[in-house]
C-alpha cells in the first residue's frame, strides 16, 4: 500500500449521506461549509441514476447545499462516455428522468443495453427484450450494481440484482461504470490533481462507497445514515478507516485529524 500523504480531496456520496431523498441529513449543510473552509477539494460522487445532473443539482439547491454542477460526478456521465467510446446504440433501461444525460445518443435498432435504476422498466417483458439482445451479443453496461437503496417506505431493490439476473441468464459479465469500480473513483479524482492516497471518500454504502474507495488507495469513512444497517462495517476487509454517526461527524474527524 502506498504511504498516506496529506489530505487534499474529499469525495462525498449524495443520497443517504448528505440527504435522504428530500430531507437533508441534520447539520449536513453547515458541515459542508466547514469542510469548504479548509484547503481540500470537494467532489460529489453518486450512483443515483434516477436523475440527471441537473435534477440532482436542483434538489441539492432546494436543500440549501452550496454545490456547483462541475463538482458532481455521476455514474450516468460515466455510462455515456462508455457508450460513445464503444460506438453502440443502447437500449436505455434507465429512469426517464435520466434521459437528458443521454441526449443525442442514437437508440434505434439497439445493439447494447445500458441498465440503471429503473423500477418502471424492470418488468418481465422489458427485461426479456434486454436478455434477447444480450444473447445476440450486445454488450451490457451497468451504471452501477447496488444491491438495494433506502426509500422513505423502506429498503428497495437497486439495479444490481437485475444486472445479476441478466448476467446469469446470458452467461456474460456487465461492464460496470459506477461505484465501486476503480475507474469511477479515478475518473472522479481526475481534474482535482490529487492522487487516491491524498483523498478520502464518505458514504453510507459499505461495499460500494467505502470498499470501492479503499480499493484504489483512498481512505473510506462509513456513515450510519441512509442505507446503513448494523454491522455493515464488517462486510469489507480491510474494514472502513472510520465509521461514524453521520456526515457532520465525518467532517469533524477530517478537520481534526487528517489535515
Amino acid at each position: 500500500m502506498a504511504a498516506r500523504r496529506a489530505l487534499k480531496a474529499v469525495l462525498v456520496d449524495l443520497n443517504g449521506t448528505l440527504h435522504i431523498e428530500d430531507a437533508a441529513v441534520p447539520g449536513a449543510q453547515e458541515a459542508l461549509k466547514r469542510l469548504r473552509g479548509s484547503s481540500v477539494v470537494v467532489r460529489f460522487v453518486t450512483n443515483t441514476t434516477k436523475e440527471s445532473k441537473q435534477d440532482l443539482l436542483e434538489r441539492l439547491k432546494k436543500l440549501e447545499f452550496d454545490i456547483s454542477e462541475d463538482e458532481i460526478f455521476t455514474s450516468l456521465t460515466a455510462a455515456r462516455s462508455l457508450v460513445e467510446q464503444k460506438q453502440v446504440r443502447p437500449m436505455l433501461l434507465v429512469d426517464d428522468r435520466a434521459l437528458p444525460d443521454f441526449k443525442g445518443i442514437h437508440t434505434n435498432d439497439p445493439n447494447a443495453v445500458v441498465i440503471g435504476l429503473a423500477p418502471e422498466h424492470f418488468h418481465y417483458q422489458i427485461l426479456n427484450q434486454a436478455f434477447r439482445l444480450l444473447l445476440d451479443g450486445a454488450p451490457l453496461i451497468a451504471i452501477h450494481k447496488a444491491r438495494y437503496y433506502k426509500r422513505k417506505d423502506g429498503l428497495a431493490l437497486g439495479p444490481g440484482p437485475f444486472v445479476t439476473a441478466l448476467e446469469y441468464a446470458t452467461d456474460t459479465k456487465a461492464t460496470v461504470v459506477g461505484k465501486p469500480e476503480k475507474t469511477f473513483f479515478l475518473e472522479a479524482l481526475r481534474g482535482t490533481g490529487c492522487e487516491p492516497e491524498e483523498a478520502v471518500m464518505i458514504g453510507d454504502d459499505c461495499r460500494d462507497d467505502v470498499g470501492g474507495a479503499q480499493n484504489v488507495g483512498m481512505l473510506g469513512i462509513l456513515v450510519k445514515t441512509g442505507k446503513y444497517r448494523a454491522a455493515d462495517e464488517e462486510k469489507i476487509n480491510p474494514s472502513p478507516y472510520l465509521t461514524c454517526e453521520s456526515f457532520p461527524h465525518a467532517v469533524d474527524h477530517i478537520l481534526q485529524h487528517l489535515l
Partner: protein
Amino acid sequence: MATWSERLAGVRGVLLDISGVLYDSGAGGGVPIPGSVEAVARLKQSQLKVRFCTNESQRSRGKLVGLLQRLGFDISEGEVTAPAPAACQILKERGLRPHLLIHDEIRSEFDKIDTSNPNCVVIADACDAFSYKNMNKAFQVLMELENPVLISLGKGRYYKETSGLMLDVGAYMKALEYACGVEAEVVGKPSPEFFQSALQVMGVEAHQAIMIGDDIVGDVGGAQRCGMRALQVRTGKFRPSDEHHPEVKADGYVDNLAEAVDLLLQHLDK
C-alpha cells in the same frame, strides 16, 4: 466416440424433460415438437420405464398435464416429477411458511401450505408476475428474516417459447441471492435429490437410467452428476454452442425426441 449401442447399453428407464422436449410453450398453451407425441407413445409401449422430470413451475402439474393431453400426449399426473410438490414437502418438514413469488397458475399446488407470517420465500417461474413490485416484496421479506431462507423451484437460465427465448426463474433467483447475500436452496433439476426421487418412483438405478432434455446444464449436467446418462435434444432452448459447452458433455446429441427414441428402441437390450 463410442457407438450408440455402447452408449445406450443397459438402459432400463428414461426420464423425459417436458418443456422444449415434448412441446414449446407459448400463446394459447403451446405446440408439440414434431414427432414427440408419437415418440412418447412408442416409448411407453416398449419395455422401458418412462417418467417425466420437469422444472415446470409456471403451472400446476394438473394444468400442465391437461395441456399436454390436449396436445395429444399420453401422460398422467402421477407420471410427473415436478418441483412444487417436492417444495411443499420440504416446507412441511421444516415448518416453513412461505411468501410465494409465483404465477397464479401454480398457486393451487400450495393450497394446503400455511402462508401467514412468512419465514421464507419460495420463488418459481412467475413470468409476468416478476414485476419490480413483486420482486421488491420478496426482497423485503427476506431482509426482515434473521435467517433468510430462499427456495427456488429450479434455477434455469431461460426456456423456449414459440415467440423466442424467455428468462427463467434462475435469473430472478440470482437477483434475490445477490440483493440479500443469501444462497438459494434449489428444488428441482439439477439438484441430485430431485433426480433421485424420480428414479426411486421408477424403481431404476441411476446407471440404468437416461435423461433426455434440452438444457445442457440443468438436464444433462445434473443427470450425469447423479450417475445417469443424458442426451441433449436440438429442440427447445438448445443452442449450437451447447455442443461445445466448457463443462458439460452429453452422452449424445440428437435432433429431437423422436430421434432419441429411435436410437433407444433400436439399441434396446433384447
